């Protein structure tokens, strides 16, 4: 399939964007988004590779990604619950200290 290299490149690009966001952003909600972008990059790579041998596509990566999507949403929900609790207890939305004193 000629479209496979395109999507493999896209997956690599998404991965790099996610890593950049994870390192640069300090807002925890943005970091959760960045981790999700990285996860989606891995899913995209697996599914793009599933069709590179031609059709029918390899069902094993599909099943793995399907499992991964469900795990990702539950992990995201857990992370968001942690974030809300952290915000409620500390009043902060990032792990770094504010320079202008406690918020």
């Amino acid at each position, binding site marked *: 399939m000629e479209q496979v290299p395109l999507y493999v490149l896209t997956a690599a690009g998404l991965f790099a964007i996610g890593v*950049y966001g994870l390192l640069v952003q300090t807002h925890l*909600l943005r970091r959760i988004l960045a981790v999700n972008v990285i996860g989606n990059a891995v899913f995209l790579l697996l599914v793009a590779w*599933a069709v590179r041998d031609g059709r029918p*596509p390899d069902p094993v990566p599909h*099943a793995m990604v399907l499992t991964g999507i469900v795990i990702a949403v539950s992990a995201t929900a857990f992370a*968001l619950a942690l974030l809300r609790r952290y915000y409620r207890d500390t009043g902060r939305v990032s792990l770094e200290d504010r320079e202008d004193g406690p918020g």
Partner: protein
Amino acid sequence: MMVWWLDGLLALGLLWLAWQAVTAPRLFRSVVMFIVFGLFMSLCWARLAAPDLALAEAAIGAGLTGALLLSAYRALLVRHGAGREEAPGIAPALARAIAVGSGVLFAVLAGILLTLPGAEAPAGREALARMEELALDNPVTGVLLVFRAYDTLMEMGVLLLALLGARVVAEPLRAAGPGPWRRPGLSEPVLVAPLVALLVPLIVLVAGYLLWAGTTAPGGAFQAGAVLAALGVLLRLTGRLRPTLTNSLYERAVLVLGLAVFTAAGALGLGTEGYMLSYPAGWSYPLILVVETTLMLSIALTLALLFSGSNGFRGAR
């Protein structure tokens, strides 16, 4: 034949949306961009001959994750105030260095991934070759429930763990469960009731179809469970379901039902076929249907409770 412009647009759109989700100046824009990113991802799965994933991504990746993110955004905003949403940033020089590093990471990854040879005998070929032995026609469902059933069983455990973890750290339940219109003195928008009356049977029908079709066509317990969970979110947001601090025995039973029934079905195989998670000869189709149905119910309730942030639901009077 490759519709090159469609794939190209999708790829560019994905990259742009991911960039926006990660760097947009306002947090709300980031969240919305990420939801659209999920929709684009769903189109990509369809382009890459993965309709099962397209269905799951549309329901879970874009829909449910979006609802979760928006609800968390609102929770941060309500007490935080709109003007103070930004966290302290890092030094611009450091950000530039990280950008360069990410560029290098992309180049290295692309170089490795594009030249990596494929496996000589991928597991999927084996799975496809043995599909005739199964009572199913959908290879993805076959892998999920027969060839790699262990993964699926463990996944149900992870889902349960995520819910338990979220419950442990959850904020105290606020009295305001449903929208403000359900509070005394405010009436619900006039279109909500007929819309719910129309959507509820439709959603149940779609979930049932997805579950039933899962054995032969794209669909299955995950997609159906996600659609049912969306029904729970709808009922929760419109006040038809109220969050409670305690859960009923019934709810606890549904939460562990998938795990318990799947384990029991697997143990049945241990008795008759000699190894765990095999199905007794001649019984695989009905057993898989039962397992899928219970998985769907457990997934739906777990995801709906994760969204609601409550221990249980209670019907509104």
